[in-house]
């Protein structure tokens, strides 16, 4: 699979470290299922680290938004960490930059929850 996910717990925040490509297919499904399972298991503070994500297609962007909605609907928060320039540009083009809380410092991101 071209997307690598690793989940770690830092205090009460769950950090999902993503690496590779989030594109239609196994990548976007794995991302979606992971967020869903976390929410199912009661996790409400989710920080998605996109620092190693080199590519997100429009379907992957859709899964970021769905994840955001799923977590919000469960009374939690999903925030983003470490956008590459390419991912940053995509969020600008799609006006999602204003929707997501975005951090480039993990400590600050963790403290913000």
């Amino acid at each position, binding site marked *: *699979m071209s997307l690598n*996910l*690793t*989940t770690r717990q830092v205090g009460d925040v769950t950090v999902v470290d993503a*690496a590779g490509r989030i594109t239609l297919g*196994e990548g976007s499904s794995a991302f979606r299922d*992971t967020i869903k*399972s976390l929410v*199912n*298991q009661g996790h409400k503070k989710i920080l998605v680290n996109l620092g190693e994500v080199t590519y997100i297609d429009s379907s992957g962007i859709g899964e970021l938004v769905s994840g955001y909605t799923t977590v919000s609907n469960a009374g939690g928060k999903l925030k983003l960490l470490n956008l590459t320039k390419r991912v940053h540009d995509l969020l600008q083009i799609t006006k999602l930059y204003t929707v997501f809380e975005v951090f480039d410092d993990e400590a600050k991101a963790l403290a913000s929850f």
Partner: protein
Amino acid sequence: MPNSESTPEILHDQHLESTLASVDASEEIAKSVAARLGFDEEEIYHIGYAVREAVVNAVVHGNLYSANKRVHLVLERSAQWLQVTVEDEGQGFEEASQADPLAEENLLSQSGRGILIIRAFMDEVTFGRSPGGGTRIIMRKSLPAAP
């Protein structure tokens, strides 16, 4: 001939990555072991199906597809049964607190039917914890009567 208390024989023991490729592989492994043990086509299908669902749950719900987590798949046989154990490195779960997929209000749910079907297809199913606190599912199917 071994009696029911004899040590089971391990037929397969493998740590798999948390990917859908591992799901396909597990189903194939289970089916070929079941075939070797003389199960009929329908039983082989049932065993493969149950193992697929258990490994999907381990990958998706347990390990959250994590690259640093493995699924442990063990197949063993005793004189009476084939036993399949699937362990993940997740945080475990309580079967009793899951929604009942047969309740009227859940019939149109998108998910939640895996364990129901595993129970329908295997003779004995027990949930427990793996050494690390993740989920362990043990599934047994009675061996076919010797011909």
